[in-house]
């Protein structure tokens, strides 16, 4: 007998239930929500205070020095940009390969992308010595006839992140239009007005659906190369320099793999949280969690491979600077960060290989947090050791970050949390129309399977009935 596999979603769910469940998640929040929001705002306040000190007194308050001109800010910047890639992975890549199990979970992942980018965008501002002149990086026609230096990877960053943020926001918005129409039809008061404007007059006509399908496909096709290029450009901040430990050709794929990895881990974290708090067990089902965990495991293995290949190429070459740096990373002052990164990034994902652990939500929550910790340490390991041990021995130095830096990095998590919390209460965090599509198609294919099975058993096979849809 064939084994009955657990279904990603129950096809018998009534569509009305989908609407009510998701709309209920947007109702007036319980006290726990307000407490969490207050905590996030407190974290942001910490960061604002630290930044005020830094802005008025100078970058020296962050304990930066020669050679550590970059430290936690850049590590956090790369971390947040990296986290944004999973939304694109889920929305765009899985859409192109018709993996419909992404449908219940891609909305909050795409929101996570947008908010990660908004959080990451803070760091280029904060780490500048003269923040008020930040706009000089943008190419505008100035009366002095001066332009930014287009050869600099930081300018490429500006272009790439602007493009990615725009494309992500547009993709999130366009994908939400049918859902906003549902919200518009089922709410009152200020919400109805808001959704009425945002839904842009969507009525679900065939003309609108036809164009919608087209734009969704086109934007997904653009978002994938864009996401890859954005993190490659961010890696170019390091790879285009000549520093040992930075000037590595495998940095673009290494960064993209790390980005997908930390993004998938963040998706698991938010999955567990949303499922618990909004009782989305019918939509964010255990099989979908399993699939997400398997995807994360695969990406973890890719990341591990790219790490190993970097070590291998250092060992293979005779570059004295790179070799000594790698030995210092593994045995020197940063060794505890290095080994934690390797443990969290390469050993811990094996927890995702066990079916029992994959289906246990608290374990998944804790594991995903540690995976992200490993990825944060990875970013730290990229930035700090190279600067501490570069070409010139007179300027070797060790630094672990300062209070001001940690406060601002800590606050960025609060900022992200704040944005995300507001999002889940104002916009539907599960894509209602896509879940209906998923249910519709699975019901139909289950029906056809049943029909095929029935006609198989019936002998002799004459003809299938004409019903069952077009």
């Amino acid at each position, binding site marked *: 007998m064939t084994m009955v596999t657990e279904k990603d979603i129950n096809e018998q769910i009534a569509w009305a239930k989908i609407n009510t469940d998701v709309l209920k998640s947007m109702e007036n929040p319980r006290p726990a929500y307000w407490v969490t929001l207050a905590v996030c705002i407190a974290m942001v306040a910490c960061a604002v205070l630290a930044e005020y000190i830094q802005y008025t*007194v*100078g*970058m*020296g308050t962050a*304990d*930066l*020095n*020669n*050679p*550590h*001109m*970059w430290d936690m800010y850049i590590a956090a910047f790369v971390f947040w940009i990296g986290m944004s890639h999973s939304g694109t992975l889920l929305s765009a890549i899985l859409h192109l390969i018709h993996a419909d199990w992404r449908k219940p979970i891609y909305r909050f992942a795409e929101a996570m992308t947008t908010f990660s980018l908004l959080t990451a965008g803070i760091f*280029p501002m904060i*780490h*500048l*010595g*003269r*923040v008020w*002149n*930040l706009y*000089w*990086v943008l190419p505008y026609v100035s009366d002095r006839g*001066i*332009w*930014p*230096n287009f*050869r*600099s*990877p*930081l*300018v490429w960053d*500006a272009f790439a992140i602007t493009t990615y943020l725009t494309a992500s926001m547009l993709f999130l918005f366009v994908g939400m239009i049918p859902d906003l129409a549902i919200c518009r039809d089922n709410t009152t008061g200020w919400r109805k007005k808001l959704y009425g404007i945002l839904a842009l007059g969507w009525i679900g006509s065939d003309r609108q659906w036809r164009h919608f399908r087209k734009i969704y496909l086109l934007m997904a096709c653009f978002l994938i190369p864009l996401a890859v290029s954005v993190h490659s450009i961010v890696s170019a*901040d390091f790879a*285009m*320099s*000549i*520093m040992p430990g930075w000037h590595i050709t495998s940095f673009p794929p290494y960064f993209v793999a790390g980005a997908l990895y930390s993004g998938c881990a963040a998706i698991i974290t938010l999955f567990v949280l949303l499922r618990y708090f909004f009782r989305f067990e019918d939509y964010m089902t255990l099989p979908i969690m399993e699939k997400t965990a398997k995807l994360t495991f695969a990406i973890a293995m890719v990341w591990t491979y790219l790490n190993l290949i970097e070590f291998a190429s250092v060992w293979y070459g005779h570059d004295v600077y790179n070799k000594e740096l790698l030995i210092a990373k593994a045995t020197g002052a940063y060794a505890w960060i290095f080994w934690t990164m390797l443990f969290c990034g390469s050993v811990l994902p094996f927890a995702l290989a066990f079916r029992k652990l994959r289906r246990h939500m608290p374990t998944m929550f804790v594991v995903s947090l540690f995976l992200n910790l490993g990825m944060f340490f990875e970013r730290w390991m990229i930035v700090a050791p190279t*600067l501490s041990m*570069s*070409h*010139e*021995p*007179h*300027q070797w*130095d060790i630094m672990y970050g300062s209070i001001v830096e940690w406060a601002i990095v800590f606050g960025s998590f609060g900022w992200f949390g704040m944005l995300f919390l507001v999002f889940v209460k104002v916009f539907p965090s599960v894509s209602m129309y896509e879940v209906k599509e998923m249910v519709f198609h699975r019901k139909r294919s289950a029906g056809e399977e049943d029909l095929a099975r029935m006609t198989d058993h019936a002998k002799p096979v004459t003809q299938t009935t004409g019903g069952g849809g077009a």
Partner: protein
Amino acid sequence: MSLDNILNHWSDYRKGSEDGGHHDYEHRWAMAINLDLCIGCNACSTACYAENNLAVVGKERFEKGQAMHWMRIERYWDQQELEHPEQGASFLPMMCQQCGAATCEPVCPVAATYHTPDGLNAQVYNRCIGSRYCSNNCPFRVRYFNFYSYYDSSWPEPMEQQLNPDISVRDKGVMEKCTFCMQRIRSVKDKAFMEDRPVQDGEVVPACAQSCPTSAIVFGDTMDDGSMVSKLWKKHQVERGVYQKTKLAKKDADLRGYRIFEELNVDPSVMYLERVREDI
């Protein structure tokens, strides 16, 4: 307009430094530092502080690594086999090497550092927004960032009277580095222009060269074949724009000249003459 500009000068604008770049140099300032003569007295460093309005940051900040010494004396003990190893101290005066293919230049997001027609790497304080990528990309680590505003801490009343009026005092958030005493070069060039003659060798003396008690630092123009610096460079077979260290085997002990990190191909303008080590 600019389209014409691009089309007419397309081939020029596509040339990198290996092909000669897109403009001609008037001078190529360079230095030759004799490490055998250097006694590590730090007079050059002090003179640089005085000449260029460098901030004295204080003991605490110096220990944190936030010092502003454009010219620093590095000390290395590399002869452990000696009976008294401390005798093997070597001193390296390190300042901006004014690289011909500077790695700091292309990475500045706002074009605050560029290559002058004099062959120097210039830092434009007003344009710098403090992203510090240039310092990260400098293999010599000779770029210094103004981590604080030093007006009150470094020059309390009446010490601001000692500031050099030819040079600005930099505020916080701006990157700075050795400029080969650009203000002195500029005033000599202006004087020569007024007198309608070329700049003579030995007319431009940077603060560090001026104050060195052993005359270890020689400054000049490598485009002027008669200058002391050109002669030293030629004698020790160090050449600009040569991307491979094509030095003969050291049959001749006098061939002591080298440039630091030459394998990185950044084309530094400072040649060091290796210290003569005692063979025991």
